[in-house]
């Protein structure tokens, strides 16, 4: 279980997170939604320790994530980055097997390659892709390779950062379906950040909406459409009018004269 309590983070005068409280139960797929710049990625990076919160606590199964053996902590996580974040200089299979080839549980090359091929097959990529470099793949294939890398070491928790950004609707559907299958099959705790509502409906067990530096609404995905929160309703239906300011109204009024 991941628990965030009163998490604050500011970059200069920009107070991105202003007291985030959130609990993600073990084995649950939590999707965090919110507009661009609302701090979704920062929140995720705070949990991973890539960004240090100014205040508040984050615990994984009751243990503070900032304390203890960092490598052992990170070994429990897999992460799918927004742009894939594959290492350009390594072949596809070496990317997938990156963690398997390093650290105390380092596997021999052949064994690591076999696992990488198995994980690539799990995301629908054949062995022919294994010896290519990331730059030779399409965006959708890169996302799938990144997903294979995220699950390669059989993590307990997987984070997905905007998994469908930049993909066409069909490939987005493929990635969403893969994520849902893998999360269910592996029984992992998943935390996804997105503003793609089709991803939310495909992936989520629980949804949390981040706005104004706090969690405005959280609940099961089935209750999302019936929730009375006007911020949530404006966001999930993509309305320009509502409590979420999409443009600075003073500037818009001044421009109209």
């Amino acid at each position, binding site marked *: 279980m991941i628990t965030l309590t009163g998490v604050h983070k500011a970059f200069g005068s920009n107070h991105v997170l202003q007291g985030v409280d959130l609990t993600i139960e073990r084995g649950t797929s939590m999707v965090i939604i919110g507009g661009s710049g609302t701090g979704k990625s920062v929140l995720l*990076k705070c949990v*991973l*320790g*890539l960004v240090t919160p100014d205040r508040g606590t984050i615990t994984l199964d009751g243990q503070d994530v900032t304390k203890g053996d*960092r*490598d052992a902590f*990170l*070994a429990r*996580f*897999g*992460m799918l*980055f*927004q*742009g894939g*974040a*594959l*290492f*350009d*200089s390594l072949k596809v299979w070496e990317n997938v097997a*990156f*963690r398997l080839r*390093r*650290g105390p549980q380092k596997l021999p090359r052949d064994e690591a390659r076999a696992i990488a091929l198995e994980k690539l097959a799990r995301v629908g990529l054949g062995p022919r892709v294994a010896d290519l470099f990331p730059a030779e793949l399409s965006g959708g294939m890169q996302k799938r390779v990144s997903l294979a*890398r995220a699950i390669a070491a059989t993590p307990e928790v997987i984070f997905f950062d905007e998994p469908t950004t930049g993909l066409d609707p069909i490939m987005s559907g493929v990635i969403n379906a893969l994520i849902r299958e893998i999360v269910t099959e592996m029984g992992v705790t998943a935390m996804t950040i997105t503003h793609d509502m089709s991803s939310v409906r495909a992936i989520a067990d629980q949804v949390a909406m981040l706005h104004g530096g706090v969690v405005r609404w959280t609940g099961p995905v089935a209750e999302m459409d019936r929730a009375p929160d006007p911020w949530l309703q404006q966001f999930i239906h993509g309305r320009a009018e509502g409590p979420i300011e999409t443009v600075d109204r003073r500037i818009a009024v001044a421009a109209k004269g």
Partner: protein
Amino acid sequence: MTPAGLLARLGRATLGVLAAIGGIAMFAGSVVGHLFRPPFYPREFAQQLLQIGWLSLPVVGLTAFFTGGALALQIYAGGARFNAEAVVPSIVAIGMARELGPVLGGLMVAARVTSSIAAEIGTMKVTEQIDALVTLSTNPIKYLVVPRVLAATLTVPLLVAVGDTIGIAGGWIVGISQLGFNSANYLKNTFDFLEPWDVGSGLVKGAAFGFIVALMGCRYGMLSGRGAQGVGSATKSAVAAASVLIIAANFLLTRLFFVT
């Protein structure tokens, strides 16, 4: 601007420079600390030996060759003013070994390698590859910085040695083909006056410049801002900082080695 405003601006600039120096010193300390602690990445180190050392040979060799030739012409022309044309071989050799070999070699490697390292690491930062390394339990300093700094520190002295040889050869070719020197006499004068420490000091300088070259590339790459402009700016700053530090370090090492 009021005197108080001017003073404030001066103060901020001074603090900025001091912060930058402190940041570089702490980064260098961290890199040196990681040099001796596992895990080590021999494959990445071998790749950097090839990238930084072997692939820099053409640019360093060509620079040294033409510099040696030009140096011979300059010393001949200058020496003719007081009938000292005969010193050309020894001055070319000493000049290349002590100063021009290491400094020009260092600057050429800075142009080629510092820019490449800063752009590569900067792009890795912008595309979240550095964050990905961390989530894969891999320390970016150990995996990216240490192999580059170690490879540059070890290979730049070798490049300097090759550059010295080619530069002296350039002077020799110009000497015998255009300045009327006898080949055997030119070589004899070269080696009679060249002392081991002339070469050794240049190699030590080369190691220091190699350390600077890779350290600046890695440091500014790691600090790269977002987007293409951020990477471009990091690359430019890395090359400028490496070049200035090489010249400054050269002065300090020359003072230390030759003026007691």
